[in-house]
């Protein structure tokens, strides 16, 4: 699975994307796995309410299941316009 990070999430984690092998069932499970891995993830995901997630390039939420998902992206609330 490809995991992408944007804006300050990318800066805190220190990379724009990575490939992960995970058995996580949901987005929250995946975040728990990442947070347990290294401090930089714990820092980036400290406040999940400040983050948004997209699954295969569609906005989703942290309760969503990851079955069949190929690309997960984490980012702060969007500031277009």
């Amino acid at each position, binding site marked *: 699975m490809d995991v*992408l990070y*944007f*804006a*300050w999430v990318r800066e805190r984690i220190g990379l724009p994307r990575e490939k992960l092998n995970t058995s996580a069932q949901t987005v929250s499970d995946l975040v728990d796995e990442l947070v347990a891995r290294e401090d930089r993830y714990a820092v980036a995901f400290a406040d999940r309410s400040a983050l948004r997630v*997209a699954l295969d*390039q*569609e*906005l989703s939420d942290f309760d969503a299941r990851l079955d069949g998902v190929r690309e997960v*992206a984490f*980012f*702060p*609330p*969007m*500031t*277009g*316009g």
Partner: protein
Amino acid sequence: MRVSVQEAPFDPGQEVNTFAKGRKDVGAVVSFTGVVRDTGDEALHAMEIEHYPGMTEAALTDIAKEAQARWSLADTLVIHRYGRLEPGEMIMMVATAARHRKDAFEAAEFLMDYLKSRAPFWKREVTEKGASWVAARDEDEDALSRW
């Protein structure tokens, strides 16, 4: 309908002319252009815009389709830039063409409200004191509830 996500500058006048040219079925063309504004106490050197290639185009297309479904529109144009922009540069524009102005105005506002908080762009302000990510504003999220 045209959606363009681009690094290159655009000319809003030329875009509106091309968009409106030769149409005999519309009575109203509305356009909005967003400009990099120098605000706050620290001088803004630049605005850096990051985006999510692939999702950005898809999200803008979905928003434009939603506008076409809700209002009676003959055509819709959305242009949004990314990369490093200086104060005074045009960031983005939307244009709508309709038989009547109410549809054109409302759809243009809808497009603006949605692309502010539903299209994957992130702004970073670079000032003389350093760079910082622009925080999303609650008002922008609240603005969606009126639609």
